[in-house]
């Protein structure tokens, strides 16, 4: 066992740190230090900056545009990005459909899609959930009817995050209506500019512009846009789920909220002293920090496995469960520390920018325990797959 980094790795850390400082535009640096909140445009800008440096997809193989770093370097890179408060890149292309295309796509698909994901010429979104099929994903009803060299797609996808900024969507669609639930589903890539596609942003709890409904009305999709085989979409979905696990561990968001908590607690007073120095409030912050440390170690274990080229152990199944709960507890504590200021809602000039960022983000993260397989579904799966408890 060894939890320390080598000298080369520490040197790499300094290199990354220096580069971020240097490369991040002044206005974004300001937002990072202020509200810590970025626009989708910031995220796109940062994506392009990283692309030019060649650091946009450290987790991709070198031959398709990755960096060739081992897991330790990738880990250090992520840590530095999070500590600097850099904007998070859109995950749908880089971390979801991209790796899937790398694993299961044809050469033509790789050539067509991967470079534009890297260069940010094309942004992606995800079309899984439907209004009637939330936790029960396999009950989806969007159909893709075989029409010779193409499919005709009809239906509605919901929770298509950032679809309003995206160029493409990857969808699970039903290609065989007679097959049993999980069979008969296909993983399909759809150009959002195709006639018949309509994207409607959805107003959410946090009023953040994240989620959309996406409607398909007789949308023509060429068959070459199928990833894997027709009717093998469920296999693709499961492969993708593996990628999602570490994405949903919320390590970055937790670190980010902890930083904000401390910044806010330093400016508020209780019993005449800063909350950050008040024993009751220090303890409340410390409890979450300590739990975060334990959670971090679980995710490090998964990363260390990856570094050795192994599948992460079963313990990685708890990352989403624990991480999403933890980030919610952190946003709740941030709200609590703000006191009456936690009332603020998209105002200007009455609270500090970092305070203004909390409420909407708190609301946004209520979805974290629901999306990506609700935490209840996660528990069902772990009970069966890992603890092997009997079925009801």
């Amino acid at each position, binding site marked *: 066992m060894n939890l320390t980094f080598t000298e080369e790795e520490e040197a790499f850390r300094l290199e990354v740190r220096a580069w971020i400082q240097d490369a991040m535009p002044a206005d974004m640096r300001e937002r990072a230090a202020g509200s810590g909140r970025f626009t989708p445009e910031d995220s796109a800008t940062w994506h392009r900056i990283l692309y030019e440096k060649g650091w946009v997809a450290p987790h991709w193989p070198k031959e398709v545009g990755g960096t060739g770093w081992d897991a330790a370097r990738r880990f250090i890179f992520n840590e530095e990005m999070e500590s600097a408060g850099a904007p998070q890149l859109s995950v749908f292309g880089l971390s979801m459909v991209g790796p899937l295309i790398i694993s299961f796509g044809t050469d033509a698909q790789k050539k067509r899609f991967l470079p534009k994901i890297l260069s940010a010429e094309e942004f992606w979104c995800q079309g899984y*959930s439907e209004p009637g*099929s*939330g*936790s*029960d994903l396999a*009950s989806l009803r969007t159909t893709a009817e075989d029409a010779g060299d193409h499919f005709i797609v009809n239906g509605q996808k*919901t*929770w298509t995050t950032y679809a309003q900024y995206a160029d493409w969507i990857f969808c699970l669609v039903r290609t065989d209506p007679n097959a049993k639930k999980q069979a008969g589903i296909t993983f399909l890539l759809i150009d959002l500019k195709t006639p018949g596609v309509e994207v409607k942003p*959805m*107003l*959410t*709890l946090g*009023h953040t512009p994240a*989620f959309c409904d996406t409607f398909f009305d007789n949308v023509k999709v060429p068959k070459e846009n199928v990833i894997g085989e027709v009717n093998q979409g469920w296999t693709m979905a499961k492969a993708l789920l593996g990628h999602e696990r570490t994405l949903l561990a919320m390590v970055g968001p937790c670190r980010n909220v902890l930083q904000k908590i401390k910044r806010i607690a330093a400016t*508020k*007073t*209780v019993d005449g002293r800063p909350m950050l120095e008040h024993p*009751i*409030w220090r303890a409340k912050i410390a409890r979450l920090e300590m739990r975060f440390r334990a959670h971090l170690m679980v995710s490090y274990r998964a990363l260390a496995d990856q570094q050795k080229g192994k599948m992460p152990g079963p313990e990685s199944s708890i990352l989403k469960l624990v991480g999403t709960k933890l980030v919610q507890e952190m946003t709740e504590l941030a*709200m*609590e520390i*703000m*006191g*009456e*200021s*936690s*009332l*603020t*809602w*998209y*105002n200007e*000039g*009455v609270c500090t920018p970092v305070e203004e960022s909390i*409420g909407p983000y708190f*609301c946004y993260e*209520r*979805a974290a*325990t*629901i*999306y990506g397989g*609700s*935490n*209840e579904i996660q*528990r069902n799966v772990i009970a069966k797959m890992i603890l092997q408890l009997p079925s009801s």
Partner: protein
Amino acid sequence: MDFELDQDQQMLAKTVADFAKNESPVERFRQLRDDDIGYDPAVWQKMGELGWLGVAFPEPVGGFGGSFVECAIVLENLATNLVPEPYLASVVLGGMALLRAGTAEQHAAYLTPMIEGDTTLALAYAEARSRFDVSAIETTATTKGGGYEISGQKVWVLNGHNADHLIVSARAPAGVTLFVVPRDAEGVSVTVAKTIDGHKAAFIELDEVAVERGARLGEEGAGARVLDRVMDYAAAAAVAESVGLASKMLHMTVDYLGTREQFGVKIGSFQALQHRAVDMYAETELLRSISMASMVRADEDDTSTRRADISAAKYQLATGGIWVAQQSLQLHGGIGVTDEHDIGLYFKRMYALNALFGDAEHHVARFSE
């Protein structure tokens, strides 16, 4: 011991509930979220005509001589449909402060018109650095001529954006003192701030605002004691409202569990979700029960008796009430985190009530004194 409402109280509860149901569906609140005022002065007027604004005030000022229990009944029932009129801000905060601090003349001038629904009030007590300590204020009232000159900044003044009269706390030579200040007085600038629950509040700057001697409520230095008492009323009011919210959220959640299907069955048949719903029920009943104690104790003069139940109640809002809100959202799944569904509006209102009039730690510390 008796936990039942008397006949008049039952009638009041029914009338308010019927009004909320028939005349103020949540849709009305939704529309008013984008309104400059955020509620309907005509509805306020009607509440005055129906006598709801005066239930807890004595007859000489135009009230019905009831107890705070009646206020709590109104609040709980308005909450079930998120009725946006500023009952808590104007009746409980402004009204109770005026009643307890003012003279008969002041009551006639400011309280009676509010009770009749002609005006609204707001209590400007909080400051950026006060955090639930009503005495920790920096606004000053210096004597000038026969009156005072008030300067300072107040934050999160509920209904401060629209109230006819503000009750302002300021540090006078002899200590914290309350004053009535018309919102349109010279030197008063109001910044409207949206709140997480779809309401509005005001940040108010007072810049050498001149008021007469008659604007002072009670003796100089008497303000802190009154505010302390009003904060207890306000906490009990928030708790009463939270009972309405929690009951409704529980109800909506149980309905949803009994309707929504996944994996071919009603999701309410899943044992883990059933148990969660039962725990929501338990927390709601704990909240309802301690709210009963707190609304009765709010009128109690003995400080320690009053505070014990009110702090316990506000703490139950902060723990059980918030938990019910969280779980109701979670059990609604994806639809729960859209603005389209009502459950999120209740959720955010619960958080707003939690942030006002003392948070969990404030009441824990006070309870253990």
